[in-house]
């Protein structure tokens, strides 16, 4: 192995170059675009885009809505996925099938997921049919209008939970598989209850997986867009849908970039928080 010194660099060079071109360059461009505005005599540095963004009537709503979704959906998905992962450990027959069914939503786009739940939640949808049959409502009822913000939020939360719990589940199940059964058995021998086994043994050992899942889910939740558009339309602006509207409908790339910067800063901050809060000390690894 004469050329070991150079080999790894040659191997990572293509991907590094790629990420530089398609990640770092647009990242810098986004920031630059966000902080530039057409002034007299071409583009000049300014915070005008941010001022327009902050002054827009949907901005506050978009921030609040985005955070509401993240704050509700992410913990909900984590609990749901933890429960499912724990249940899976006790499934003997048909584990493969159950696992497959539970991970199906992993492959479903948020656009499709939005449409799925739209079919259920429209005025003449299946939910109202069931509620009507139960006598809860009389006739079609609207859940997704601006007059029913709570129901709309709930609908989006449910759709998000339906679609994206699978990814948390997969990460957690993978993490659970790395935890030797003996640890739980040892705790069992020493008299731990099932709940104690879960909180004292499983949860701490799953910390790295939980961290990954939280980071990924949170970043993706900030990216949420098509599901909100299909269910809420303009009734439920979120940060990325606003970025999309500014770019696509309003054709104002600067304000769109400003939104993008906001989303990125929030995502990065959330990631850092998770990294610090869920740190595993090196001596415990």
């Amino acid at each position, binding site marked *: 192995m004469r050329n070991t010194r150079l080999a790894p660099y040659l191997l990572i060079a293509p991907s590094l170059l790629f990420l530089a071109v398609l990640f770092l360059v647009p990242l810098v461009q986004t920031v630059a675009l966000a902080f530039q505005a057409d002034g007299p005599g071409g583009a000049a540095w300014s915070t005008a885009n941010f001022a327009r963004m902050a002054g827009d*009537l949907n901005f506050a709503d978009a921030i609040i809505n985005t955070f509401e979704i993240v704050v509700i959906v992410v913990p909900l998905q984590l609990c749901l996925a933890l429960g499912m992962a724990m249940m899976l450990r006790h499934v003997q027959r048909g584990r493969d099938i159950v696992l497959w069914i539970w991970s199906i939503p992993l492959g479903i786009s948020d656009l499709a997921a939005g449409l799925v739940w739209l079919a259920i939640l429209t005025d003449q949808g299946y939910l109202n049919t069931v509620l009507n049959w139960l006598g809860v409502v009389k006739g079609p009822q609207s859940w997704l*209008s*601006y007059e029913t913000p709570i129901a709309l939020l709930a609908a989006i939360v449910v759709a998000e939970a339906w679609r994206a719990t699978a990814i948390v589940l997969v990460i957690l199940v993978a993490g659970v598989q790395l935890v030797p059964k003996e640890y739980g058995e040892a705790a069992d021998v020493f008299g731990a209850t099932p709940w104690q086994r879960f909180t004292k043994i499983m949860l701490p050992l799953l910390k790295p997986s939980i961290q990954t899942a939280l980071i990924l889910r949170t970043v993706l939740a900030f990216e949420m867009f098509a599901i909100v558009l299909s269910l809420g339309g303009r009734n439920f602006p979120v940060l990325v849908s606003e970025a999309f509207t500014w770019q696509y*409908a309003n054709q104002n790339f600067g304000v769109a970039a400003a939104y993008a910067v906001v989303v990125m800063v929030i995502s990065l901050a959330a990631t850092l928080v998770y990294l610090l809060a869920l740190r595993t000390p090196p001596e415990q690894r």
Partner: protein
Amino acid sequence: MTRPGLRGLSAALLGATLLLAPPRAHAEDMVFVSTQMRPIEEAQKVRDTILKDAPAPVAYVTEDPPALPVRVKAEMQGGKHTISLIGALHGELQPLATMGALMTLDDLAARLKERGIPDEVMKLGQFGTGHQMYIPWMQATYLMVANRQALPYLPAGADINALTYDQLQAWAAAIQEKTGKRMLGFPAGPKGLMHRFFEGFLYPSYTGGVVVPFRSDDAEKMWTAFAGLWKTVNPNSTSYNFMQEPLLAGDVWIGFDHVARVLDALRQKPDDFVAFPAPAGPKGRGYMPVLAGLAVAKGAPDANGAMALIDYLAKPETQITTARAVGFFPVVKATLPPDLDPGLKLAVAAIAATGGAKDALPSLLPIGLGQKGGEFDKVFMDTFQLVVLRGQKPRAVLDRQGQEMQRILTETGAPCWAPDPPSQGACQVK
């Protein structure tokens, strides 16, 4: 265990090599980009019926209005032209003409003279340059459609073809009172055309203009009145993109939309619905005629083919076929045959009633805003959202949004368009 993986990968690689050479079988077809008749079912009708007898094979491609100038510009800069023919609204073609992206069509216009396109309509296609930049293609407008079940609730003495906004409100209120449901609907969803209602109907009807009186006292009164009307509007309206769906589903009984977006309801159940002009306000019956034109891109790969297609599309037979298929009406002299399907007949009658109303006040689509068209529309939608949906005081909102509108007009330098009085330089909000 490695076998299936191997086979899978080699299959994928094989597939990839096949796909990397995408089919270019239709590459030679002339490309016709249109911002009209975009919904997939309509576009399908364009391909299957209207273009069926075209002189040469055509690739009909739809485009969101904001994306059209981006794409044309990209092709101009890249020097790689794919688009030959462009079909778009008057206001969407104007920035392209300004950009220098359109061929002049003076000869073609002269040749098509005998088709009987009214002179004032033909002249719109010159954008005041003295050269024909596009050939008028087809026209449409917006109208109202009501379920016959709603008719008994019509206020006493109201003529459905000469409705006022006050009567509309009374009508919807009566329905709400009797049925407990809000059965009036507007297409205020993300892809709906609600902004056109404000720009072409509500503002002219109440203020006689669009931009100049944007923040006038008349406008303030108008918004207050509209907020009152909205109390009778189905709350799902902010999700409606097309009114034909909620009309057919019975979610709403009375709806306003572009003719092409309600036509399906009329066609499917012509006996259930009536169509009629939009209401009138104190300053008249504002309405927005929609004129679509056909233009040939400069550097078009097949300019002659494009012109031949314009010729074909401007034939009376084709224009009638177009009207039958998608509900856009002829610009050339053509008599619609008596065997039109009943739904289309309803629409034709309503459109005729709109244009022919004594108090008709035509209001053009915004002109000269280029890429800022989206932001211009946003001003109206934001005002709507703030005043009507969030219940803010109209005065403060109008003052703020008025500044925003002025900024857009100043940046683009767009002069006023009808019904606002013509202006020197950028249109000014009073």
